[in-house]
């Protein structure tokens, strides 16, 4: 436990047992982590994993791991996912060291390239084996980056969905819609990073700040800890007198939620509200009504409210939902106990997964008792997650269930403006 880079950990864990780590994989992932580094979030550990030595060396993050030195000679994966995967497979121990002893791991990566699409699923798999809850934020390539990258990205996304608890894709195309006329490439990518940052930050805030109505790690696990479904994630903020109304309106245009309304129904929903000292019950009620109205009245709703003096009149809302999508039901993620846990007793909320145990046997059935009649499917291999309505190929709206109309390799059911990258000012 006394690696240099982890020297902070025991102190961090001493006051709260939830260890959160943000791991950037590949170029895009590292950039996003670098950006977040500036924000200085307490208790959030950062790490980057890359195949490119040069990119790693310029990163301000402390914990940097170069993988696949013997395969890529530290020169990057060159857009080849196979190479990326091999690199990660070759350095499993290094990766295992990075993800060790964490409760929640945010995996940030950009799909489409070599390391992002190839290595990220391996990292996620190792992290899941170590017992952590793995949430992945992934950016999808712009359409103009070409069909090959898109294909790689989708394969990468699929692989990631099979091993992560929640995958939140962020289609860059949607960001293009938001961009103003004169925005530079740098700004556009920064915007993608910023959204990922906001996503990570809001979950971090939810867990690390003690709330009026507290949402703890167990709640989070409860909400997302079932695979084989859709993940819904969105956030928005508002300020001033109409803070609540602004936040609700903001949720409607959040690019992370880029899907038409009819598919935005979640079976389990976690809503977290962060507001200033002036947050009234009335306002909370107003917001919750609007949110549940939109995202599923019948869902199992967990709600959290955090008071942060610094927020002033601002209000931030973060929703996270999952829905079970047919196909043989969802599988409760096998919670493998971690090998050794520092300070297991300091767990105020009783939140972390089952403690102490033997070595990990990843393939074996989970040690936690299966819940809600899911026993019968536990031994089945986890199904790949249902494709979520994001990105180019998937947003077909009402035509979701119909035959595709292909013309020149384009699916004509997908809105033209999306396929052609026409910017829409909402």
């Amino acid at each position, binding site marked *: 436990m006394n690696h240099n880079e982890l020297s902070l950990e025991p102190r961090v864990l001493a006051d709260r047992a939830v260890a959160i780590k943000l791991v950037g994989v590949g170029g895009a992932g590292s950039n996003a982590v670098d950006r977040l580094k500036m924000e200085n979030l307490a208790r959030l550990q950062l790490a980057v994993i890359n195949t490119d030595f040069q990119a790693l060396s310029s990163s301000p993050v402390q914990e940097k791991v170069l993988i696949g030195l013997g395969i890529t000679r530290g020169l990057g994966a060159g857009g080849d996912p196979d190479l990326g995967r091999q690199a990660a497979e070759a350095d499993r121990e290094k990766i295992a060291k990075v993800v060790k002893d964490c409760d929640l791991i945010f995996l940030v990566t950009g799909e489409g390239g070599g390391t992002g699409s190839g290595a990220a699923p391996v990292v996620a798999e190792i992290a899941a084996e170590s017992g952590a809850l793995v949430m992945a934020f992934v950016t999808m390539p712009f359409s103009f980056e070409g069909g090959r990258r898109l294909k790689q990205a989708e394969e990468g996304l699929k692989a990631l969905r099979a091993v992560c608890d929640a995958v939140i894709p962020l289609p860059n195309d949607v960001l293009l819609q938001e961009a103003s006329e004169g925005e530079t490439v740098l700004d556009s990518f920064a915007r993608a990073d910023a959204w990922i940052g906001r996503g990570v930050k809001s979950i971090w805030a939810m867990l690390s700040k003690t709330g009026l109505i507290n949402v703890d790690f167990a709640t989070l696990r409860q909400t997302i800890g079932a695979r084989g479904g859709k993940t819904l994630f969105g956030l928005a903020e508002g300020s001033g007198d109409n803070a609540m109304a602004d936040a609700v309106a903001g949720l*409607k*245009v959040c690019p992370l939620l880029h*899907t*038409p*309304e*009819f598919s935005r129904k979640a079976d389990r929903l976690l809503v977290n509200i962060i507001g200033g000292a002036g947050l009234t019950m009335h306002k909370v009620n107003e917001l919750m009504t609007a949110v549940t109205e939109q995202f599923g009245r019948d869902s199992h709703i967990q709600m959290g409210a955090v008071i942060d003096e610094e927020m002033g009149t601002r209000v931030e809302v973060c929703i996270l939902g999952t829905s079970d999508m047919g196909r043989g039901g969802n599988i409760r993620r096998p919670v493998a106990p971690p090998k050794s846990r520092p300070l297991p007793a300091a767990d105020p909320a009783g939140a972390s997964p089952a403690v102490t145990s033997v070595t990990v046997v990843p393939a074996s059935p989970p040690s936690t008792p299966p819940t809600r009649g899911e026993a019968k499917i536990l031994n089945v291999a986890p199904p790949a997650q249902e494709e979520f309505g994001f990105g180019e190929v998937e*947003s*077909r*709206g*009402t*035509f979701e269930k*119909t*035959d595709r*109309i292909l*013309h*020149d390799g384009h699916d*004509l*059911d997908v*809105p*033209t*403006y*999306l396929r*052609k990258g*026409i*910017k*829409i*000012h*909402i």
Partner: protein
Amino acid sequence: MSSRSTFIGAVEIGTSKICVLVAEHSGSEVAIIGRGECASRGVIKGAVVDFKAASECAHAALEQAERQAGEKIEEVFLAQTGGHLEGFYNEAAVSVKAADNLIDHSDVRTVCDLALLRDLPFGRTVVHNIRRPFRVDGRMIPGSPVNLVGQRLEVGYWTVHGQEQRLADTINVIKGFNLNVREIVLASLASGYVVTSPEERQHGVLVIDVGGGTTDFALYRDGCAHTTGVLPVGGAHITNDLSIGLRLTQAQAEKLKLRHGRATVQTKDKAQKVWLDGNFAIGDRQFSQQAIEQIVAARIEETLQVVRQRLGAAFRPETCAAGVVLTGGTARLPGIAEVAARVFGVPAHLGEPPVWVAENLREPGHHTALGVLYCGIKAQAEHGQSARRGRGFFSSLRELFTHA
């Protein structure tokens, strides 16, 4: 023809609405005496997906039409559309048998039979065989070549074929009302017949019927249909695009499309907003007029471009002197003719039915049903007149009810 009048129902099962016209047909006269219309359910992109829902709507429309007419419909002419309809061109040539090179009926029959020999893929059935003009020694003959002199007689057919099951689906909807389908007519031909004049068809004209779920098109050259096609993209796609782009429900998007949709981007001011409801109710939202126009314009332009690509070499501006005629419900979008003119490089205008069509039937949404009625009657008349392959393409309409 019998002197007794028959009551004919022309039915169009569309994606957005089901339209029924009842006509009294006595010998040479046709009078439209009833109309029924019902919003359509269970039909997506021109194909029946929910038989029960589609049947209920169709039967409601049929009942309404019968009530208005005060008569029972005896037989039905049915419009056909859907992405499964495809077409191909096949031609044949024969040497004229007679010593004096005078073409007779048997030559014509032989060449027609030869041109129709090509087999269809499995599970498909012919909807129409549309004959292109005969050629005698390479010279085009607008009418019948019988008694003309030449050595070589050529003819080609544009064969429209569709999937048997899909065709049977729509026919079974009508059968469920205990009615027989007497004729099926390709929707594009039906509306094309209504909105173009014989002169326009002679000079070359492209009819594009942009409907709710499909865009049907028919290119006429030398007086008859040359190429037809169905693209299963229509107004519902615009609604869907708006719903995804502006994050609205389908119903809201539909409303926005009808109120503020435009086929061209005219609004320059990004800040110009329109209300969703405009009734000052709680929950009303504002949308950028420009965003709406951008989304709609992108779809319309692309749809027309795809039509042009599908037509391929068949469409050339030189041979389409009468330009593009637009019809169908989506043709009501302001500015669509402008876009069509730009895409096809020929003048474009909205289709108008002939002057004798009554005021309440002049809506573009009714053109197909109207066309089905007249095409059907024309075909029937020709079936009655002669058993042999007659003149004009309408005679090659197939009576499908015997196969279905």
